[in-house]
């Protein structure tokens, strides 16, 4: 809201920044990273749900033939899906802290000059 209230040269700088290749690349990269992670989340979670819904026999398959080893694929996948979701979140944070934030700082400093 306050971008419009700035002096003319500042808003000219802002326009330049918006049109600069570096800023465009930043927006594009963020979009790409979050899209890829979102697609992975979809594949992981809805894949799990569809597997459970359509192939309960596969989900019920035991991991080992030993008579006492009762753990089946479904129990592992259930917990695995939860861990997978957290790992995706962690990947995003690591990427953003290491690569997104420094670029944001650099572009912000450009605008100040």
């Amino acid at each position, binding site marked *: 809201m306050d971008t419009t209230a700035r002096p003319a040269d500042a808003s000219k700088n802002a326009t330049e920044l918006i049109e600069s290749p570096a*800023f465009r690349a930043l927006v594009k990269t963020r979009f790409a990273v979050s899209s890829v992670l979102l697609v992975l989340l979809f594949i992981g979670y809805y894949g799990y749900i569809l597997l459970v819904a359509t192939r309960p026999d596969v989900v019920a398959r035991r991991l080992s033939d030993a008579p006492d080893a009762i753990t089946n694929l*479904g129990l592992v996948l259930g917990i695995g899906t939860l861990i997978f979701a957290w790992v995706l979140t962690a990947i995003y944070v690591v990427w953003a802290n290491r690569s997104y934030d420094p670029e944001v700082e650099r572009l912000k400093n450009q*605008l100040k000059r």
Partner: protein
Amino acid sequence: MPPATTAAPAYESTLGHPTFASVGFFFLIVLVTLIVTYWAARKTKTSSEYYAAGRSVSAAQNGLALAGDYMSAASFLGISGMVALKGYDGMIYATGWLMGWPALMFLVAEPLRNLGKFTFADVVAYRLRQGPVRIAAAVGGILTTIFYTIAQMVGSGSLIALMFGMPFVLAEVLVGAVMLLYVLFGGMLATTWVQIIKAVLLLCGVTVLTVLVLSHFGFSLPALYKAANDLYPAQHLLVPGDLTKSPVDAISLGLALMFGLLGLPHILMRFYTVPDAKAARVSVLYATGLIGYFYVIIPIVGFGAAVLLSVKGADGSLLAFGQEVIRSFDKGGNMAAPLLAEAMWGSAFLGFIAAVAFATILAVVAGLTLAGASAYSHDIYVSVIKKGRATEEEQVKAAKIATVVFGIVAVAMGIAFQGQNVAFMVGLAFAIAASANFPALLMSIVWKRFTTWGAVWSILVGAATSVGMIVLSKTVWVDLFHFEHAIFPMKNPAIFSMSAAFLAGIVASLLTPEPEAQSKFESEKLRTYLGIGAE
């Protein structure tokens, strides 16, 4: 073992009777939270302090508070009970509750923090015309919060009656009065700290319970699974049951759970309490970790309850199955975790768990009340009626009046719906959030050609289709209105209502081009991505 079924009612428990421990823990928690409120009240003067805790909450604190907001009594007691009675289906259900968090991170958390001030409507209305968008967004926000609140209030009344033996109406009034103290005097700062305290207590309580369960099985998860499977051979507790019978229904429920989170006003509001987008991002990681951990260990409690609550005679013969014991206290299985606590460590631990469940209800209702109140006071009163020109004093006063009104409505609705099965209302709240609030929020952030009327139509169509389809579905049409056949065949409408909301938003935007909104999109990007000018 023929006498097995008759033994269940004889199960002895202090559940439902106020004990020294349960009442003591309850008063201790209320006392501590009220001291926090007193401390917070001295730091809560301006509107930014009232709605957003002065943007002073750290990422770790916000992560705990977000987790606290999300781990309601329904998910703690309900999911452990569902696993105890239905086994693996409870685990599938629990999984869906976490999936919204990564999506929240990838799609909205940072832009929301950078663009908004107090509510998600700030973001939707950022480059559109304030009046129509604010009113529509407030409708979506208030509908979501009110249904979520009714479900919490009615559930809490019965839970407190079950655990403390307290009359329903008294429980409602008590919850309403205490949480109003938090919100009215301590604003968002008190609400956040109440949420943090409760999240820590809840996570500790469930962790102890889990360790105690596992200690009975030599700390081996497969041994626990085997014991549950062997005790109920006919039930196939370890394989999928009815929950995912229809794949489309299962996917629709998954969509509602995932994208509903991205439209829950009381969750979105928390992102304004941290200083910047980076803190918002890190807080989601904390919250996802804590909530994920919670859903990993809750099924252990459920399976443990099904096995360990079984009653054995002196000669080692089985007198009653754990599931029967659980059902004899509450048919839905909600008392599985409290009963297990008592069986593991005696009535003092039951008292602790019951008090934590009560604190959970107080904290969640407080957060909802603040979110519901802000949808009126910030979006309608300050932004539309006063056209954004209200003084700090007027803003805080409006917020406090709206808070009191929302609190009274919550208590009244809770009492009005006493004894009704309102479990569907949580599903309804998520469906409305996913259909009315989320599509408009996402399109306003990412789509340049999104317009005022696109936002309004998207919100209204999303709200109307999700409410309409749930009313016509079995849960309401047959179970509540007693018609013979449901008109809408599915349990959860999100797959259709969310698509309808996106479609309505796209069509309406293309039909009503808004050059002014388009031209603001580029400059908005500086704020969305770099945080320049963010509040």
